[in-house]
């Protein structure tokens, strides 16, 4: 028995799940409908796939949510997991699920997949025969991913960096790398049985003033960590920056460089997709403004040629949307996309060159670290502050980089901290920044964070 299989058998021996039948699960995936695989959908359509966010505690409410989504023309269904399950606290999730079922109130902010189990959940997934994407935020997602794949959820979001730096204060980063390595290997193993399992990185990060150079570096690294374990279908992603130009530039460079680095490491056969998140920062309370923001981001998604868009709703500022509001958002995005086919490609050469340089400079510093494996190089890079994200709660994050918006709304690096970018690249960034006389950087940042309010 392989080491991985031995570890898997230990992981699934958990008091909160029924007997896990590896043979049966393998048979299920081998003969599963192609319609359940987003990787298959990417291959067979030229249209942008539309995916909302959403998850409720009980089976019935998720079933109804999916029904609503299907009526609105959804392409990919989400399954958002509750916060207790994300922290591996299945006992609390179980208690809250029971309370939700008895009292018909939602005591969890998502679906406790471990407690529902794969046998039950699979019924719902195969009933709708539509790809489902697992949305969570879990540093140790080993059991969760086993149960998700066994349920017929063939897209797994997350990664050791993107689900840690924005989500945790002190979960150990080295453990996160190793636990995600397990996830990649399981996804890779199942990918050989039918269509590939798709892995997706979470580009929005802390969704607050994230400089594209850092987002792209982290996207490329999580892609490489996944592909080196044998994953064949991977989605890189980023969220709306607040500047249409910067979104276009980010997308052009991300597409080019993710392919380049995948090929450089010999992953020529891997398929790489691009996912665009509608605005992830603070939403306006005015629902008309929200509608306008959502429409604009749909236009941008079409301009950047995203393979999938992840939608928001006009209720974003007020909390978790109802299934009706959520489905309406999907229908509206589909409606808008219908007008946006065959757009010309636009670009800005100077901007693309500078972003490309910054990403390459950081990547070279990471790859030149003396450690023997990629994950250790990345671990060291984060420890040294060669990679950090603005506004992370995690203790390992360096918190030296400061970003502000230029007059066109582009996010620029004002303080580079320990980022290993060249003087030339940094000078380009700084040259775009305009501070008013006596304007304090921190006041500018506060204003720039709330740009959509």
């Amino acid at each position, binding site marked *: 028995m392989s080491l991985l299989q031995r570890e898997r058998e230990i992981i699934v021996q958990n008091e909160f799940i029924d007997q896990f039948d590896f043979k049966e699960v393998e048979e299920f995936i081998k003969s599963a409908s192609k319609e359940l695989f987003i990787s298959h959908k990417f291959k067979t359509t030229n249209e942008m796939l539309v995916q909302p966010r959403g998850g409720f505690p009980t089976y019935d409410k998720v079933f109804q949510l999916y029904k609503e989504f299907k009526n609105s023309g959804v392409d990919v269904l989400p399954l958002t997991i509750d916060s207790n399950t994300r922290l591996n606290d299945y006992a609390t999730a179980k208690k809250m699920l029971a309370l939700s079922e008895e009292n018909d109130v939602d005591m969890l902010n998502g679906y406790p997949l471990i407690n529902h189990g794969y046998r039950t959940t699979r019924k719902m997934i195969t009933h709708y025969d539509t790809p489902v994407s697992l949305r969570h935020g879990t540093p140790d997602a080993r059991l969760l991913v086993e149960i998700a794949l066994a349920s017929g959820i063939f897209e797994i979001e997350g990664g050791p960096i993107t689900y840690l730096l924005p989500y945790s204060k002190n979960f150990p980063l080295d453990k996160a790398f190793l636990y995600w390595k397990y996830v990649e290997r399981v996804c890779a193993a199942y990918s050989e049985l039918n269509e590939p399992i798709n892995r997706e990185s979470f580009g929005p990060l802390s969704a*607050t003033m994230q400089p594209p150079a850092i987002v792209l570096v982290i996207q490329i690294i999580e892609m490489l960590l996944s592909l080196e374990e044998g994953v064949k279908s991977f989605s890189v992603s980023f969220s709306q920056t607040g500047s249409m130009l910067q979104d276009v530039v980010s997308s052009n460079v991300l597409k080019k460089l993710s392919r380049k680095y995948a090929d450089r490491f010999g992953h020529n056969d891997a398929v790489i997709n691009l996912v665009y998140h509608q605005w992830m920062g603070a939403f306006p309370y005015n629902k008309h403004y929200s509608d306008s923001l959502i429409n604009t981001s749909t236009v941008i998604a079409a301009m950047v040629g995203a393979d999938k868009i992840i939608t928001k709703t006009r209720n974003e500022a007020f909390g978790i949307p109802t299934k009706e509001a959520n489905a309406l958002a999907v229908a509206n995005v589909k409606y808008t996309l219908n007008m946006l086919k065959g757009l010309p490609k636009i670009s800005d050469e100077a901007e693309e060159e500078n972003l490309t340089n910054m990403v390459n400079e950081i990547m070279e510093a990471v790859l030149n670290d003396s450690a023997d494996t990629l994950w250790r190089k990345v671990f060291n890079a984060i420890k040294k502050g060669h990679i950090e994200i603005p506004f*992370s*709660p995690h203790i390992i994050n360096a918190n030296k980089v400061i970003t502000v918006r230029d007059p066109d709304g582009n996010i620029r690096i004002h303080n580079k901290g320990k980022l290993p970018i060249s003087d030339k690249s940094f000078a380009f960034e700084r040259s775009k920044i305009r501070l008013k006389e006596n304007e*304090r*950087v*921190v006041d500018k940042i506060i204003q720039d964070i709330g740009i959509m309010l």
Partner: protein
Amino acid sequence: MKVVTGVVGNDVHVVANRLIDISLQERGFEVFNLGVNTYLEEFIDAVIETDADVLLVSSLNGEAEGWCRDLGILKSKYDFSDVVFMIGGNLGVGEMNAEELGPKYRNYGFDLVFHQVDLNEGLDQLENYLKERK
């Protein structure tokens, strides 16, 4: 001047914490930022370890009231007469009578209390307080 800062209790709202950090640095303070989810005991330990001049506790989710009650007990165990104790943010859950919050927190042992006060104004007042005390 050294400042220890952080978000008290089980509160992970990091954005304001980073802004406080940056603002203090811009004003020339040496900042020891304990980040989110910090307990009162950790704040006190850090003040002793760094020999800080100011402890700036912040709260966004409003639960600071429960977390700061023991400040008096902790303060009595060590000589903190040179340290300014300051708290700011949303200092109550839900709608509060702001007039009552000041005396309540001063009673816990804070010298400066800022409930929903603009960050720069709070820091201006801190600087004035430090100047006057000299």
